Structures are given as C-alpha cells and as structure tokens.
C-alpha cells in the first residue's frame, strides 16, 4: 500500500508541477517598447481548433501582432465542441478580459454567449467564421465574394470568354454562397459564358465526385467546372479522369490545400485555386481590436484579401 501512496502522491505533484511550466506568463510577453499603459489590455480568444495549419498560421500572426500592440493574449481551442467554447468564453468574461475573439464551432449556438458577453460591455470579434444573429463588433474573414470573383475572372480568361460551366456547390454554407455570388458576378461581363448547372457536392470529395459524374452525363458540351472548395474540385477531377474527359474540361477550385497545389503543379485539369491568408486574418483581427480600443470606428465586416494561384505562380514560388 505504501507504493500506491507514493504513486498517487507523485501523480498529484506531477500535475501540480506541470501546470505552471506550460503556462504562458503574459506579463512577461509584454514588450518593453509598448506604450506604458496604465493597465495591460487582455484579449481572450476561443478558436475552432489547434489541429489545422490554417489556425496555426492565424494564431502565430495574432500573437505577433498582440505583442507589438502590447496586449496579453489568452488563447483557447474548443476543438469543434460548442459547449466547450461556451465555457471558455464564460470563463474569459468572468476573468474580465477587455475583448474577445471567437472562431465559432457552431455559428448559431454561440450567439447567446456572445450576446451575453457583449451585454457586459466586452466587445466581441469573430475571426474566419461568422456568428449568426450575434452582437459582434466586427467580423474579420477572407473576402469570399472577392475570392469567387477572382477565380471567375481567371476562368473566363482561360476559356477565352466563351463556354459552359458547372458549379459543384454547397449552397447551405454562408461562405460558399458568397463565393458563388462573386463567381457569378465576375461572369456577368462575359455573355458568352453560361452557368449550365449547379450540383450539390456538400463540400465532400465522394459526394462531389458523384455530383460531377451526373453533370458530365447531363451536359455533353461542358467546358469547365468550379469546385467551391478543394475537395469539390478534386472530386470533380476524379470524375473527369474516370470519364476520360480530363483534356476537354478544366477545373478551378478554392482554398489551395497542399494536395490541390500539387495537382495544379502537376499540370492536371485543375488549373487554379483561390487561396486565403490566415496570417492576414490574425493580424488584421488584432489591429481591428486596437482600432476599437483607440476609439476609432470599425467596420462591421472586415474583408481580408485573397489570391489566385496557378501553375505559373506555384512554379515561381518554388524557385
């Protein structure tokens, strides 16, 4: 039994001992060159996940910018669990943070919690993902309308202003609606280009592939496909290749995942992607909060730039 005592004690010491060492001490992260404020501002952030490269880039930029501005930044990840996110935000509110950043796991379900924080005078900023019907000071995210527009224009150029296009859609997601709206807007300038069909691919590769197969069956003179994300685009590519149409129909996608980049670089039917800039989102989020603290008016929605990548740009990047 002595041994059990020892083990139990060791466990307690272990967890007592490791908590401080892994804890960031925000007071020491405040740089010396920041303006000597009466009290350091603290920002609490509850983000979607730590697992995606996108969020790691976003957080790195956020931390850099917060350091520059002299803010203490406390970051929590909800790992796709909305109840956990609610608890994190409530704890931040209880701690009396000066501003909150949220990347919601559940755009609808987080609203009451955000409103609660806002009603206690804490400004809430959403980054990357919006919250529905919530009292948010500012939403900072990629400009999806612009992204759709850029890829639309790029595709029109590839088609020489002429041809039939299908969209592998996921119409229920707000950001996708924006992408498609931008895409359609860009194509208005090209009367000879027609969007002949929108097929639901639900943003998933297997479903997108099936949708693309249906489209290929129905549209004999198809020239191009727009996949609303890379899984949709790659699903469509698989459908084309199995139908032997990879040389007749071209594809454009969205997101620029590593797999999509490789595919573009390899010169397949997928020609170009819209890419987002998570580091910009992170940086601009903190800057927007700084503007708010300084009493400047901030926009309800802050769009963050997006870019097009194609084989040429990727090859150039590699050199």
């Amino acid at each position: 039994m002595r041994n059990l005592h020892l083990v139990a004690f060791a466990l307690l010491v272990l967890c007592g001992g490791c908590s401080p060492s892994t804890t960031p001490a925000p007071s020491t992260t405040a740089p010396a060159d920041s303006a000597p404020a009466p009290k350091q501002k603290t920002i609490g952030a509850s983000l979607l996940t730590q697992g995606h490269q996108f969020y790691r880039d976003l957080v790195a930029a956020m931390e850099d910018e917060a350091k520059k501005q002299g803010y203490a930044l406390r970051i929590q990840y909800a790992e796709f669990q909305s109840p956990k996110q609610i608890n994190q935000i409530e704890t931040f509110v209880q701690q009396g943070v000066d501003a909150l950043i949220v990347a919601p796991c559940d755009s609808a379900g987080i609203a009451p919690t955000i409103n609660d924080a806002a009603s206690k005078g804490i400004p809430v900023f959403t980054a990357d993902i919006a919250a529905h019907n919530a009292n948010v000071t500012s939403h900072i995210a990629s400009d999806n309308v612009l992204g759709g527009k850029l890829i639309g224009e790029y595709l029109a150029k590839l088609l020489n202003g002429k041809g039939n296009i299908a969209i592998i859609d996921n119409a229920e997601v707000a950001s996708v609606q924006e992408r498609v709206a931008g895409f359609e807007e860009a194509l208005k300038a090209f009367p000879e280009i027609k969007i002949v069909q929108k097929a639901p691919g639900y943003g998933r590769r297997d479903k997108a592939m099936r949708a693309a197969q249906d489209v290929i069956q129905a549209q004999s003179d198809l020239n191009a496909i727009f996949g609303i994300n890379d899984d949709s685009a790659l699903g469509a590519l698989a459908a084309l290749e199995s139908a032997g149409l990879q040389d007749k129909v071209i594809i454009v996608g969205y997101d620029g995942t590593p797999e999509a980049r490789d595919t573009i670089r390899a010169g397949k039917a997928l020609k170009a992607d819209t890419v987002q800039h998570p580091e910009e989102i992170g940086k601009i989020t903190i800057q927007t909060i700084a503007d708010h603290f300084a009493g400047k008016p901030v926009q309800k929605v802050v769009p963050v730039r997006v870019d097009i990548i194609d084989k040429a740009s990727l090859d150039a990047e590699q050199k």
Partner: protein
Amino acid sequence: MSRNPARAFFVNYGYLLIALVLECVVFEFLARRQGIKPFLSFDTLLLVLNQSAIYGVASVGMTFVIISGGIDLSVGSLIAFGGVICALITQKLGAGWNAMIFGWFVAIAAGIGTGSFSALFITRFQIPPFIATLAVMSTIRGLGFLIVEGKPVFDVPERYTFLGRYLVAGIPIGVIILIFVFIIGGVLLNSTRFGRHVRAIGGSEESARLSGVPVDRVKWAVYCMSSALAVLAGLMLSSKMKSGDPTVGVGDELQVIAAVVVGGTSLTGGRGTIMGTFLGLIIIAVLATGLTWIGMESFGQQVILGIVILAAVLLDRIKRT
C-alpha cells in the same frame, strides 16, 4: 461507524475534499503569480457550478446506473437528441411559453422511452448494458440527425434560453436545477427503498433477486432515470445555445462517467454515493475552469484531467484497503 456526522463525512469524502481544496489553492496561487484576476470568488463558484450543471444533471442518473452494476453510453447522444426535439417543437409551434414547455415534456418523454428501450434489452434479453446502450447511443445520435436533416435548429424565440441563461435572485436556473437534482438523487439513493434496491442489485444481482428485489423493474427505473436526466441536460445545453444542434455531446458520457468514478463510485457496482459524484463533478469542473483561467490550452488540459482521474481513483483504492 461513527455517530458524529461531520467525522463520518470526512472519513468518506476526505480525500476528495483535500483534492478540491488543493486544486483551488494551486489555481489561486498560479493566478496571483500571473498577475491576473484572483481565481477564488463567489462569482467563480457560480461559474463553476453553472458550467458543471449539464454534466452534473446527467451524472446523477449515471451514478444510479453504475451503482446498479450497469453503464449508460447513450447519455451524450441523448443530450443532443433532447435539445433537438425541444428546439424543433418550439420552432414549429410558435413563440408561446406553452410551445416550449410542451417541447420539454415531449423531450423528457422521449428520454424515458429511450431508457425503457435500453432496459428492455438489458433485462428481458440479457444484453450486457455496455452493448445495449452502445447500440442506443448510435441509434439516438442518428435519429437526432435525421429529424432535423443534420442541420441545427436555431430560429427559436428569445425565451428559449430560460433553462440555460435566466437568473433567479442572481443564481442561474441551471445551478438551481443542478442542486435540486442532486438533492433529489441523494435522498432517493440514501433514504428510499428504491435506492437500497439499486445498491443491492449492484452488490449481487442474484442475492437481490432471491431477497425479493424486483430486479427488472428497478433496472428499468434506473435506465429511464438516466435517460430522462440526460435529456434534461440536453435541454439545458440547447437552451444555453439557443438552438438544437444534433452534433453536440459526442463523448459526453465519458465525461459524466469520469465525474462518477472520481467521486468514488465503483464501476463494478454496489458502492457509490451522490455526494461523491457531486465532489467528483466539482473537482473536474474546477480543473477545467481553473486551467482555462490560468491559460492552459485544451490538449494540456486533457492530459491533466487524465492524471487527476487516475490519482483520484488511486486515492480511493488506498482508502478502501
């Protein structure tokens, strides 16, 4: 043994109390060292209670199930299912209080139905509880998705947040429900024939049966209770989120089981207390809130939670030997 209730309390729950106090002291110390707002305050207490309300309500039912020698894995799915049903009914029937209250009753009734279903398989067909409730977990999760076609229901009236966000005399309703459920659960387990029967079945089902305990009926009641309380937890969560989301609660049964086990309830059945579960729940809740408070991210939190569960169970073992 001891006639002195205070002493008896300390003999039974001393380790848990020490662990709780230790936790609070560590967090207070770390918060002060970081120069952030002190951890210990009445508001933090309310926060911890409020945040543990959902698991807490479900853990009372789980305590009964585990003491009876069973396990209920369907809790997480029922948390989602309850919220989805209530939100859907409230949305369909309009803005009145009646619609929502009707939604509560339908959801709870669905919970009791689910519990009966599990119990039927466990008693009549002698399916091990682990398997039976595992199947129900999957079925109910799927049903939750089906009835709303996978999308959360969120266009519900403002008063939908009654259970999760309203206050009575500064105390959140969730906390009041939590305390109420624990008191009822404690009285049921300690002072009624039903509670005695639950413990007898967990101790030795055969002995209990041969002593005239209506084993099947008691088990039925236990699983109904667990399911109904899981649904109540789901209603509270759904209210807090002002939406019915079929994706929530995945794996919550494990969190609930953790609270019960840390509280000293034996997974082999027969032994356990509601007070223990309450302390187990609070120990875990303080840990989660405290670690967030001092800024530890979630992966680290999981590691520490695991260590604390191990330490608690180990301490309990030492106490028993």
